[in-house]
């Protein structure tokens, strides 16, 4: 790729990510010449045309974006753009039939929201779409808090929200547990079914990034369901995808333990099984430490030897920590060992599970977590959503 086209690709990317804003229609047209089939870009251009009051061109551009979104299998952005198109110019029946057919052809891949829309008849789909309202939520906005009445369903089109619930009670073993999940595109929130029950929110929902979503109020949905009973059936199924996981979504689990990095020198004293044999003393560096244990990279000169026999042995571990003059010491057990290549050299990693530690040392490790719980939870939930295969 030459430098110029590379730059253009970067410009397109930055426009889509929102870090670059183009205010001029002519300038945008130039950029579109290199990426005329990118639906996200077309959609941003259509938004610009609306801002400039060029409604007919905007509607055409939204229509084009819808076609590309459908072709890319992106159902919610397609519906979002179609509704934007309608707010400028109403589509013909033929166009509506085409989008209906396109949406039904999208591979649903077990995505609950896709199943909800794809299984509607033509009339049902457009009755629901007619009530959907596009919304924009800025990063940092609190969307919902416990006890707020549940009065709509919100389908996430783009962006990330975090949903935090508190499970269990003080009386139960383990007490109250805080669970944070991320809602990204194709997820939904809103616990409104059965319609006759007045429900209230049990979680805190906050926009982490700017979010675009489609919402439909409970009142409007009830009205549609009276006319089209199949929509109520589909709403019930959609609702079941939440309750099947105890009111929570199935796509996300948050790790329980805190693990943080504290790369420092460590001395291990491995106790022998037989009496009369002296303990083996090894040195190394910690790779990371959690309250439950530590991963230790042994010094290079110790990588050979009878390491297999080490697993299961009791060990006393002394970790050098600058702020604790005596270091942190703990009793533990070697749980695993692995031979690895570390930047070109062979070395050995071992995992030590802590069994005993003084309260002071425990508190020290706890307080010196380099990453807070919120950050850690967010990293793990984003990893689940964005990276995990």
């Amino acid at each position, binding site marked *: *790729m030459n*430098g110029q086209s*590379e730059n253009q690709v*970067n410009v397109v990317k930055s426009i889509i990510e929102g*870090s670059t804003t183009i205010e001029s229609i002519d300038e945008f047209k130039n950029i579109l010449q290199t990426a005329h089939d990118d639906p996200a870009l077309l959609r941003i251009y259509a938004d610009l045309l609306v801002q400039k009051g060029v409604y007919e061109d905007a509607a055409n551009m939204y229509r084009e974006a819808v076609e590309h979104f459908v072709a890319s299998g992106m159902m919610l952005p397609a519906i979002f753009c179609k509704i934007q198109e309608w707010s400028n110019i109403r589509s013909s029946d033929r166009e509506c039939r085409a989008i209906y057919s396109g949406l039904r052809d999208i591979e649903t891949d077990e995505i609950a929201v896709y199943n909800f829309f794809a299984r509607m008849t033509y009339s049902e789909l457009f009755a629901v779409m007619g009530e959907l309202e596009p919304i924009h939520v800025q*990063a*940092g906005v609190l969307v919902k808090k416990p006890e707020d009445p549940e009065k709509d369903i919100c389908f996430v089109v783009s962006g*990330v929200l975090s949903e935090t619930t508190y499970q269990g009670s003080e009386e139960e073993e383990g007490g109250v547990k805080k669970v944070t999940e991320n809602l990204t595109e194709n997820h939904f929130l809103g616990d409104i079914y059965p319609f006759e029950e007045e429900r209230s929110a049990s979680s805190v929902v906050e926009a*982490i*990034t700017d979010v675009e979503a489609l919402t439909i109020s409970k009142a409007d949905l009830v009205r549609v369901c009276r006319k089209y009973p199949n929509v109520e059936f589909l709403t019930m199924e959609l609702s079941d995808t939440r309750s099947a996981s105890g009111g929570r979504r199935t796509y996300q689990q948050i*790790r329980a333990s805190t*693990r*943080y*990095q504290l*790369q420092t020198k460590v001395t291990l004293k491995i106790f022998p099984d037989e009496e009369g044999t002296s303990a083996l003393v090894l040195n190394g560096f910690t*790779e*990371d430490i959690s309250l439950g244990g530590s991963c230790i*990279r042994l010094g290079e000169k110790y990588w050979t030897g009878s390491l297999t026999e080490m697993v299961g042995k009791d060990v006393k571990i002394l970790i050098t920590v600058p702020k604790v003059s005596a270091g942190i010491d703990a009793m533990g057990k070697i749980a695993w060992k692995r031979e*690895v*290549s*570390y*930047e*070109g*050299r062979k070395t050995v990693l071992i995992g030590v599970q802590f069994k005993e530690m003084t309260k002071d040392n425990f508190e020290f490790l*706890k*307080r*010196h*977590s*380099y*990453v*807070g*719980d*919120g*950050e*850690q939870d*967010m*990293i*793990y939930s*984003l*990893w689940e959503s*964005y*990276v*995990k*295969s």
Partner: protein
Amino acid sequence: METAPQIWAVGGGKGGVGKSTVSTLLAFWLARMGNDTILMDVDLGGANIHTFMGIKSPPRTLNDFIAKRYDSLEDISIETEVENLRIICGACDILTLANPHVAQKAKIIQNLPKLKAKYIVLDLGAGTSFNVLDFFLVAHRKIIVLTPQPISIQNAYAFVRNAVYRRLSRLSSQRPYLQALVRTAMDTNNELRVKTIRDLYQVIEDSQGKDVMNDLEYEIDKIRPQVITNMITNPKDKNAGRVIQLVAEKYLMIHPTNLGGVVFDRQLNNVITEMTPLTTLVKSSEAFASVYDLVMKLI
């Protein structure tokens, strides 16, 4: 007229994510594009860049500069087989330089701009010690390398978080009360209930005034890490950088760039294990091609 070199620092927290490999490949491409480039090993606890370049026993290292056996960093630089590329080797003696005194670190940092090169690529050590962070913060391009595993992402984030707090701490060094606030906030379970940099700015604004807060915010906003995901084996892996981006935007109020990824290259791994110079692979390595694209984005 000679201009000061542009410094690129490559860090990332965890050992084994490929910081040295990425540093070497970045420096290689910069040199290959005709730029005088110096690859400098500031992994002071485990220097190894020289082995990546096929040099078993470097004749001169940073140790010689610190020990005043040579007057300048320029004098300890070593030519390599790659045209336009020199290296400055780290100290191989772990005990001597793993924890350099403040003055020694300052001496190295102060001498960086005097090097006669267009680009200096710093290969930082693992961990988030002040020594590593200070080299990172002094660089024009602050590059973070991670792998797609969650623990690596977390460590890379911890590195960025510590860099932000280190900068805040330095900026507030003349104001004891402000520095105490920053130090308190760094403890994730602090009594001020500060969870994010936004919270900290609010506390600072309330106690020190809006101007002080604005100055700090302006300086911290300049930390723009550029994230590279190494050892990519499937397309979703390169979103690891996006994770850092989103978490840092929310909690640290900085704006990292997700630069892209370097594909996992078994050949490269084998070469590293055999201690053959990395640069012998250039024509057949997918990782080399990935890094070329990254360099094009960075220059």
